[in-house]
């Protein structure tokens, strides 16, 4: 009996010791700072009173891993850019903020962790995090929050949230990038059939797909002077990336496109399946290409199989907002920025760009530049007459679409095949 109790006691002590050891170490952590302090004190006691400026911390949540070479990488690099330009700024991030990888921690809770670690601004990088933005801002109405791709701060938008005083939205007009992608595809296709590998269906993806179609249609008709209408087909996989068993398999979808004679696939998803499948077909002697998305270097996996990539340059728009937060001049804003038409690939000024890849022939490259020039010159493809996919009128002849009409595009356009809404 007695010995039994002793043993229980001993183990209890061991457990306590373990816990204490583990708990004690964090408090011991600042030790190095203390060892430095006396040195400083002996040299110049005055310095001690001069409290070091509190660091300015940028926090970002990314839906995927920051190494995804797609969406999350682009966002993360944007934040890195802002940090590098702001003196004394630090950057912390939490990646894989999605319910599949972290089912038990919501985006809001991740944001909370960044806040605990001293973040002065928190960037939510995905449309997916809408609920996280809502929840977090309701608990912390004064913490600056930037929602990439969002529209809560848009006074003229449908989802304007007047109560979120410190929340801003940032997006760039990727519609132009998608038009360039569509144009490059239309210039290159031999079969006149272009596939669009879509993610899930929402306002953003609908208008991006439509923009790609508009670019393709324009270059097909006006630059190549073709008379037959171009075949433009959209297949949505159901998510931004492949989830086995849940989404359609993008590899399979791309494969089907190429097999069915669609010789160019424009990617609208965040991963690189389109170009890898194109490379596979090219290796078998087929003349097919892909157009990538999101990240400047997304074509690097197979440059020959890629025409180019419309990419984001988030830093350009993030920097001024974050700077204003640091300076204390921050006000809530909705940013939907145009590219710098003088040089869309200028990393310091243009929020989107188009990086050509080896698959694009010199001739088509020149034609694409011509198209970009036209856009810069004020060409607006969102001009009537345009009909919706179901035949109803979108824009009457000569009418230009408003920002709201573009942002909240309810359907795909006439001339495109594929679903407008999820069935």
């Amino acid at each position, binding site marked *: 009996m007695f010995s039994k109790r002793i043993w229980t006691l001993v183990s209890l002590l061991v457990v306590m010791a373990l816990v204490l050891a583990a708990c004690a170490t964090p408090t011991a952590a600042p030790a190095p700072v203390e060892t430095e302090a006396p040195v400083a004190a002996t040299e110049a006691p005055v310095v001690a009173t001069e409290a070091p400026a509190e660091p300015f911390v940028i926090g970002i949540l990314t839906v995927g891993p920051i190494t995804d070479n797609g969406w999350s990488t682009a966002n993360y690099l944007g934040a890195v850019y802002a940090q590098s330009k702001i003196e004394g700024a630090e950057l912390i991030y939490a990646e894989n903020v999605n*319910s599949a990888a972290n089912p*038990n921690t919501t985006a809001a*809770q991740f944001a909370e962790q960044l806040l605990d670690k001293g973040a002065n601004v928190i960037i939510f990088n995905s449309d997916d995090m809408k609920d996280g933005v809502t929840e977090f801002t309701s608990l912390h109405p004064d913490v600056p929050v930037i929602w990439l791709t969002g529209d809560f701060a848009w006074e003229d938008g449908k989802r304007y949230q007047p109560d979120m005083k410190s929340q801003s939205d940032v997006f760039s007009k990727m519609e132009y990038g998608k038009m360039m992608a569509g144009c490059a595809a239309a210039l290159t296709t031999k079969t006149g059939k272009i596939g669009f590998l879509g993610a899930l269906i929402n306002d953003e993806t609908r208008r991006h797909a439509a923009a790609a179609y508009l670019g393709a249609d324009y270059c097909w008709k006006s630059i190549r002077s073709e008379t037959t209408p171009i075949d433009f087909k959209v297949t949505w996989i159901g998510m931004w990336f492949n989830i086995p068993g*849940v989404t359609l398999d993008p590899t399979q979808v791309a494969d089907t496109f190429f097999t069915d004679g669609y010789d160019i696939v424009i990617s609208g998803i965040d991963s690189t399946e389109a170009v890898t499948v194109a490379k596979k077909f090219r290796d078998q002697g087929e003349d097919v290409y892909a157009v990538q998305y999101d990240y400047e270097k997304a074509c690097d996996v197979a440059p020959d199989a890629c025409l180019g990539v419309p990419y984001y340059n988030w830093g350009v728009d993030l920097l001024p907002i974050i700077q204003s937060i640091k300076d204390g001049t921050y006000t809530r804003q909705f940013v939907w920025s145009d590219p710098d038409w003088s040089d869309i690939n200028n990393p310091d000024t243009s929020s989107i760009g188009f990086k050509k890849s080896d698959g694009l022939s010199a001739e088509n490259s020149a034609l694409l530049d011509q198209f970009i020039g036209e856009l810069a010159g004020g060409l607006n493809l969102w001009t009537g007459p345009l009909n919706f996919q179901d035949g109803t009128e979108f824009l009457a002849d000569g009418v230009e679409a408003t920002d709201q009409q573009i942002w909240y595009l309810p359907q795909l356009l006439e001339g495109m095949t594929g679903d407008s809404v999820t069935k």
Partner: protein
Amino acid sequence: MEKEKTKNPNQNSFLFNLLTNRASSMTLAVVFALVFTSLLVWMMKANPISVFQTIITGAFGSTNNFTQVIQAWVPLVLASLGLMFTFTAGLWNIGMEGQIVMGAIFSYGIIRIFDGSDASSALVIILCILAGILGGTLWAFLVGLLKNFGGVNEIFGGLGFNFIADAVMLFLVFGPWKPEGVANGSTKMLDTRFWLPQIEGTYLSLWALGIAIVCVILVTVILQGTYFGLKLKAVGKNNKSSFLLGIHTNRYMLLAFVLCGVLAGLTGALQVLGFNHVLRNNISGGYGYIGLMVGMLANIQPLITAPIAFIFIALSKGAAGLGIDLKLDSNLAGVIQGALVIFVLIMDGVRKVLIKKFKGVQSG
């Protein structure tokens, strides 16, 4: 008198006592698990000390972190408690996941009915919880029926129903229940009126916590103080003898599933009302599977599930910070949990073998 001839002095040796005392052998298991993960971390070229530090501050470092841990403890402990019933009856309810999912779906269904109405939030919340319980119970009941009358092993049945529940969920959130114009695998967020009230400035709902604590007590009393609990245990230990002793074994196995389903459904409802505030893919949070691990360690003692679930959840919540601070994969928590389970089971096995050999069957 003959003691000098003693040939097996090890009964009193340090090592023997260390390995046969329950508490010390469990402590040893924990130490082994920690050493094991440290080695792993070290091989990943990270510093084990800072890993554990991060986990502990991640779990307890701030009020916010701590309340998050408590918040996540609720569903895990509920799931583990549910599994106490099936474990006691000698059943492996792998179908827990699907039952949680069904609970969530049913309870969100009620939300849809009352969305936009001015019904009292308390009423709607209670209805949601009841519907969730119904959903989980139904799903568990089906597994039980298949086992009893179809002769389908509950593991396969459970897996099958997990798949179906996931399929139903995907159909709903990508189909009829998707928010207008969007389909991203989750529904519209609940009107805040229908959230379980949370403590100001945190994600923790005292209501959820209260429900969990009541359930811990209730399940403990049911399993350890009632005829029902004893009969369930008898069925789990020896089905044939129990039947001959006059216990309706089939009925009891079915009841074990049903009660497990009740708690699964409750878990699902709370995941919707108290945590996610939407219905979405992965709503179960994997608690059905983690619950199985907790259940194995708890060794059919419901009271023990509370601290074990707490350790598990503190580990995984704390580990979320690994990605932020150390750029390590937060799945390391899963590895530590797994290592804990394995080492505890090993040490328990060693302890039992030693006791059987040297001390005989334990009484009591």
